[in-house]
């Protein structure tokens, strides 16, 4: 079971779409959990205008007791961890929760015309990637595998939406 949690502010349609699209990759049941409202002062860093991804993960875990399976929280605000300028997503390796941001995936941020189709694809890839971590997968060097690390959107666009052979069998082994 995979639960999708929305953390406002976030584009509703992006969340709905990713719930549908994840079925392409994951055999598990995917459901919508609803919203979690987060108090800004708990996770928001005004100087950086970003959510602290690690703190956000802690909140998500805290506010979803007793949910079985994996959780993916989606937000529209930029994320960071203290030592880095930004992260697109953060997950517990072989854990329960993951969080991702759609902020950096918009073409407009880079001065280019909006591309909804591309945006939807990028959101899906990042969602699969972070969920992959919760299933115990680490980064993969295969350029087409979705577990390949990608800090830049151009790199996200190159990789595929699914796992490579090795990652897939690793996931099966981990679930067993």
């Amino acid at each position, binding site marked *: 079971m995979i639960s999708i949690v929305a953390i406002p502010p976030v584009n509703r349609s992006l969340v709905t779409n990713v719930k549908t699209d994840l079925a392409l990759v994951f055999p598990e049941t995917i459901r919508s959990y609803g919203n979690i409202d987060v108090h800004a002062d708990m996770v928001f860093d005004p100087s950086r205008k970003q959510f602290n991804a*690690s703190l956000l993960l802690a909140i998500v875990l805290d506010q979803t007791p007793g949910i079985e399976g994996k959780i993916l929280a989606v937000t529209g605000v930029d994320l*960071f*961890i*203290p*030592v*880095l*300028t*930004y*992260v697109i997503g*953060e*997950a517990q*390796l072989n854990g329960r929760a993951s969080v991702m941001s759609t902020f950096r995936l918009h073409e407009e941020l880079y001065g280019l015309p909006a591309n909804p189709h591309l945006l939807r694809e990028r959101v899906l890839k990042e969602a699969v990637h972070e969920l992959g*971590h919760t299933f115990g997968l*680490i*980064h*993969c*060097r*295969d350029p087409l595998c979705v577990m390949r*690390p990608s*800090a*830049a959107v151009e790199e996200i666009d190159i990789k595929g939406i699914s796992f490579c052979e*090795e990652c897939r069998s690793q996931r099966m082994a981990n679930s067993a």
Partner: protein
Amino acid sequence: MNRKEKNKQSVMVVDDELVVRESLAQWFAEDGYRVGCASNATEALRVMKEGPWDVILLDIKMPGMSGLELQKHLKQVDPSSIVIMITAFASVDSAVQALKEGAFDYVTKPVDPDHLSQLVRNALRQRTLSEENLRLREHITELVKGGELVGDSPQMKKVIELATSVARADTTVMIRGESGTGKELIARLIHANSDRRYFPIVPVNCGAVPESLLESELFGHERGAFTGAQYRRKGKFEMANGGTIFLDEVGTISAQMQVQLLRVLETKQFTRIGGNEAITSDFRVVCATNRDLEAAMKVGDFREDLYYRLNVFTISIPPLRERRSDIPPLAEHFVQKYAVMMNKPVVEISPDAMDLLVRYHWPGNVRELENVIERALVLTSGKSIAKEDIPFQIAQSSLKPSSELLTDMEKIHIESVLVKHNWNITHSAEALGIDRVTLYNKINRYGLKRP
């Protein structure tokens, strides 16, 4: 395949802030690295023991010992680990200092994740490359050292000792010896033991190249320098840049070439034939001759100034007949070599045949011995090389000594018997029909040396 590779790579994070340690640890763990953390210098040095750590991320500002100071200590423990300094405060001074002390790079918090992963990847690649470089250098040293120098005689041991001792310096070496005694092998040994071993050794047989082409061979030529010169050619001096040039049969070169050679040796500069550009080359000179240069100098055939420039350090290789105890190991070595080449079984040399070989005076030295063995292997069909497989002239000559002096004949005979019996004094004396004391006296008198 990649996963396993990555799993071997390790990162240590040293930062006083817990949140930094935890986020970086998590970040690297996702990439499959083995991660270690430390909050201060003392802890870091302890964690070092759990290494090796491929990359160390070090915060500059920490309570207690600073990152800059710690870096020095960490490098002492493991000089090959790559250190990347991170800090919240960009300071040019500390950056420069860190890099001077050997840090790979310097980044400021917050770090762009793309930049950081690129950095770590490059750092690891550098480490792999320098390890590979070290391995390859060792490999080359192995390859180059494995020469064909066979021979346990005290004379050869002395030659090899001299060659190895002069190898390290850039001194010009002159190798003297009859044709076929292994002068090129010694030259290669010198090169292999020198600091120039990773660069080429360029041999030039001055005696084999026609006079008219020797200049072009040594200095190269430009396009159209003479009829037939369609392309630019680099000369041997240019190709030896960084390495060694081996001038074989240097005694054969003409008076005009001698002048040119002298100038190049003194200035390390020359121009290609038909060219204008002065070319500089950093080479070491090893030369060889089988001629009597001193005599040539006296009659004016060899320039005195060139002689003194070349004759700085001399190594003389004695002819094979002066070290007969080298003959059996050499003969066996060549049997092995050619048997393998011809895809034939390695055979023994019959005692009769070996006796002939040991007694012969070998005007062609080792090269001649090699030819004889090669020929014998082609001819022999049996399990060993017999007397009949040795060329007639040698057989004849072995029995009829080259000198008429009784003492020479006795010397050769005694040496041959000693070699045959592996220098066992009792057996040799018995074979010669004399007592041990007499044998010892004769060994002394003829200056025979035990290998």
